[in-house]
């Protein structure tokens, strides 16, 4: 469903701040895969997601979605196939517009936008039914401006909007990180529910190890622009946080010594 082939990206090329953001990234997601991505800050996780969504373009390498090469496709065209939820709850919705208007925009994602009423009676009923699945009572506040909602409510709405048209790929960029623990749990459960309902192919970045283990069937760990660990379905079932930490330590430790060796030579 999603293929990254030898993706390379340099930031601040040819300046003293030059940084390898992504180094020979290869990734292959099958339809229905739910992969969690962990790694420290600056590992290249968000950069990778931005490559897939089209917000950034790779220096080298190809991106394929549903067997179509989309490397040169601009962001707005690619987003017909990609649903996204951002870390910032403010980022995924339009605050001065109402809940139903926001949903109407999400509904038009994979269609051509025309000069027809964005919210009609039929759609309103459909929005109401979908909002009921959130259990946040938003279905009775269709005409409330989204700016009036709490962070958790907005993030739940963003999630619903991202999955509304059953995109080929769902990208979640630390979408629970800005919420308090109880709200984060609510969004985590919702994510599970919505992804399972439509068997969405999902890529989720998280800093929460437990969340990375609880959700999804595959896991990768990134560091310094590389994928340093890939865990498949069978292994992931047996994985625990201590094991993951050990693995992290082992790989990083190795890397450190090899770096040191390089320096002393």
């Amino acid at each position, binding site marked *: 469903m999603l293929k990254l082939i030898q993706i390379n990206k340099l930031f601040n090329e040819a300046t003293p701040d030059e940084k390898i953001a992504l180094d020979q990234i290869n990734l292959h997601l099958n339809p229905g895969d739910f992969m969690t991505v962990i790694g420290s800050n600056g590992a290249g996780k968000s950069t990778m997601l931005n490559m897939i*969504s089209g917000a950034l373009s790779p220096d080298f390498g190809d991106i394929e979605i549903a067997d179509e090469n989309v490397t040169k496709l*601009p*962001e*707005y*065209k*690619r*987003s*017909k196939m*990609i649903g*996204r939820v*951002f870390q910032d709850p*403010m*980022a*995924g*919705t*339009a*605050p*001065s*517009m109402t809940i139903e*208007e926001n949903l*109407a*925009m*999400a509904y*038009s*994602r*994979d269609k051509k*936008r*025309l*000069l*027809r*009423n*964005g*919210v009609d009676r039929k759609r309103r009923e459909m929005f109401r039914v979908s909002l009921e699945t959130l259990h946040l009572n938003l279905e009775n506040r269709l005409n409330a401006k989204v700016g009036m909602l709490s962070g958790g409510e907005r993030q739940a709405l963003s999630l619903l*909007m*991202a999955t509304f048209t059953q995109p080929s790929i769902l990208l979640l960029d630390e979408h629970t990180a800005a919420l308090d623990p109880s709200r984060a749990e609510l969004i985590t459960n919702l994510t599970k529910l919505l992804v399972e309902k439509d068997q969405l192919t999902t890529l989720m970045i998280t800093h929460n190890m437990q969340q990375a283990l609880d959700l999804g069937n595959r896991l990768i760990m990134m560091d310094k622009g590389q994928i340093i660990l890939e865990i498949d379905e069978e292994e992931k079932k047996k994985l625990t946080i201590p094991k993951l930490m050990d693995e992290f330590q082992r790989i990083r430790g190795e890397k450190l010594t090899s770096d040191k060796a390089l320096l002393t030579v």
Partner: protein
Amino acid sequence: MFLAVFGSVEQGIIYAIMALGVYISFRILDFPDLTVDGSFVTGAAVAATMIILGYHPVLATASAVIIGFLAGCFTGLLHTKGKINALLSGILMMIALYSINLRIMGMTSESSIGRPNIPLLNAETMFNQFQNFWGSLGIDAAMNNFFGMMGVQYLPSTWGTLFVMGIIVLLIKFGVDWFLKTEVGLAIRATGDNKKMIRSLSANTDTLIIVGLGFSNALVAFSGALIAQYAKFSDIGMGIGMIIIGLASVIIGEAIFGTKTIVRTTLAVIAGAIIYRIVLGLALRVDFLDTGDMKLITAVIVIGALILPQYFEKRREKNRKAKRHAERLSTFQQSKGGAAVAETHPD
């Protein structure tokens, strides 16, 4: 006095179309578009030139609208494809239009390429064409009789302009309301509200900005074309400070009538444009103020409209807090006798 206010309302309604255009760029797209100063004159210049060249006033006005649309699109192109700062692309377009407007009006002159003004004194305009029809209805006499009986001394020569402009402005208002609720309209609003989000929902924000600015400037040019026919001249300087007048209308309207829904806000903008004209008209009646002071008065009105609401809001907030404090204090004292202290905090 009555006549002065009447004239202000008449003009205000025509300028309201321009204010709606400014509302679309400024508020909906969140794009401070200074093209307005130029595109207003472009509308006037195209309409006046075509009328002088013998075209039908309606065709002349429609052409003005189309040219205004193109001017707005060009500003949008400079900003989105040329990656030029929003303010700067508007200013560049405004300055370019100055020369273009001179050349457009120059088409009526055989001796020179550019021309700074065109009088329309004896020309056919949309207004006097409408007047021929309106005059046969006898409404003017009835209205003037009515106001005459109420003791108003100086009566307007016709109510037709006010009537037809009122209808046109309301039609445009409903059109704008409807447009902003369509799928395209929603995407345009979201572009001004949260670009990142609407792009992630597969909308081409560049195209939306270009179309939105085109739409905005089409309204501005329409207003310019009508003002030229109303005032019976087109002048290269008539657009100076137009953006501020538009902004003043938007801000005054929003401050007085609120912004709860689009339907309400567009009505507020129209009312704001009329109120602005009335305030300006009354200010100009003060003896020591001259017509040359108009721009200064405009600036003062806008500053007032920006500062006063903040002041009133603060006062209201303070009063509300004081009242609430007094209420809590009294309930506290009442319950002090026997009730539990906890109950003094009802919320």
